[in-house]
């Protein structure tokens, strides 16, 4: 991979907007591929970004997905305005979901998103304030040292 300076960008996300849900992650995936990031890193970044993007669409009101790619790592930060997560430890458990029935009928709400983000990330941080919103920081190393 040939990145001298870091490359960054940002996408806007709208809660409830299922029509465009996934376009940010799809674009991020193609940006990373074009930069020559290894296929495995592209895949992990795209999956983590997509799960996080869907969480904003499903659970929050609005948010942003910001990415920075350097020769060392891909860093994806999602910040949303929304209800926040009351018990992060619980939310991280596989199978835990507060998604309403209509979301389950749309193919989401299995409670597998956050654990899968963690699995695909080399570093993962989640901060949340009830009634304000949630921030996720996902870091994936581009080099295997």
């Amino acid at each position, binding site marked *: 991979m040939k990145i001298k300076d870091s490359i960054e960008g940002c996408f806007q996300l709208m809660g409830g907007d*299922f*029509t465009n*849900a*996934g*376009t940010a*992650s*799809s674009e991020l*995936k193609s940006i990373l591929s074009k930069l020559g990031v290894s296929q495995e890193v592209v*895949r992990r970044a*795209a*999956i983590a970004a*997509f*799960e996080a993007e*869907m969480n904003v669409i499903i659970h929050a009101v609005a948010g942003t997905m910001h990415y920075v790619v350097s020769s060392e790592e891909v860093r994806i930060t999602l910040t949303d305005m929304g209800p926040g997560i009351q018990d992060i430890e619980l939310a991280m458990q596989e199978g835990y979901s507060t998604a309403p029935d209509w979301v389950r009928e*749309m*193919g*989401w*709400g*299995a*409670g*597998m*998103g956050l654990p*899968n983000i963690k*699995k695909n990330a080399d570093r993962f941080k989640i901060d949340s304030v009830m009634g304000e919103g949630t921030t996720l920081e996902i870091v994936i190393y581009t080099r295997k040292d």
Partner: protein
Amino acid sequence: MKLNDIAEIVDGHIIVNSTGGSPDIVSVCSTDLMSDVLRFATKGALLVTALNQSQVIRTAEISDIPAVLMVMGKKMEREMIELAMEKNIALMVTHLPAFTVCGMLYAGGLRSCLED
């Protein structure tokens, strides 16, 4: 297994054919929950689902799934079909239910995706 072979086994129609040669399907993932798809090593897999939402194509794109098989003859919105074309993801439909489709494809030698 090529798409044509799969279409023949499950009595399906190919709605969107992938450009640049038919993908060789090596495994199958049968589910209607997208986060379930995203957990598996789905490269080269066929996604069998009854969920007729564009999100299915997005999920396929993100997880390198080359082909989707819609069961129960579910009607798809134009939007979903167009997205499949744009993302070069093959799309098939069959009137059979997921159980019959899985049974036939399993008997035909295809196996499950492995956990990633």
